């Protein structure tokens, strides 16, 4: 009955590979996010999707591509992995209460630790 789940929990791969991280939420939320936490534990928003539509795309290399097949899923695909991509990636979701009354309380997944060798 996990609210926001991510797979895999750990991902170790070589430079230049392409990999995907999957995220699923069973909360019925309409907005999902990807965050990156670097080695200094700094958390930064990467993407936000609302009802399968991209809302936020921060300054992220276009090697990173989010894909939302439906409201409950937001997967992160990374092409040509680089050493600097090593980090913990968190998925989150939230529910818009009503226009102008958006709460933005976000529920986070357990994270995926990506290590690029």
């Amino acid at each position, binding site marked *: 009955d996990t609210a926001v789940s991510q797979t895999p929990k750990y991902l170790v791969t070589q430079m230049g590979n392409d990999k995907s991280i999957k995220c699923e939420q069973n909360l019925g939320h309409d*907005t999902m*996010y990807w*965050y990156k936490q670097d080695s*200094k*534990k*700094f*958390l*930064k*928003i990467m993407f*936000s999707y*609302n009802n399968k539509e991209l*809302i*936020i795309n*921060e300054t992220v290399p276009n090697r990173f591509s989010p894909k939302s097949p439906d409201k409950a899923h937001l997967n992160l695909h990374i092409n040509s992995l680089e050493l600097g991509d090593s980090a913990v990636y*968190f998925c989150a979701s*939230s529910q*818009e209460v009503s226009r*102008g*009354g*958006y*709460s*933005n*309380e*976000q*529920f*986070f*997944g*357990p*994270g995926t630790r990506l290590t690029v060798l």
Partner: protein
Amino acid sequence: AQSVTQPDIHITVSEGASLELRCNYSYGATPYLFWYVQSPGQGLQLLLKYFSGDTLVQGIKGFEAEFKRSQSSFNLRKPSVHWSDAAEYFCAVGGFSGGGADGLTFGKGTHLIIQP
């Protein structure tokens, strides 16, 4: 642009002592403010949140926070810490920009160490 400052990178507190973690924010509209806690190797757990109303908000695990608009602060407090409170604490700000969901902007975190 919105920002969050947590001026203390590390704080050491004796078990049973009181705790205050500082957070200052900058946000152009009405802020929604959050405190999250992250234990080693774990995800983020919401401690408490402020949207509107009473400026003193109660959270889980005995934590509370006070929103002070004049000081742009949202400091986290606990009257008596337990060894299990040792973790990384993040303050965050978000809101509704009219275009949809705002991602949260996080501070750099405060690492809390509990001394026996």
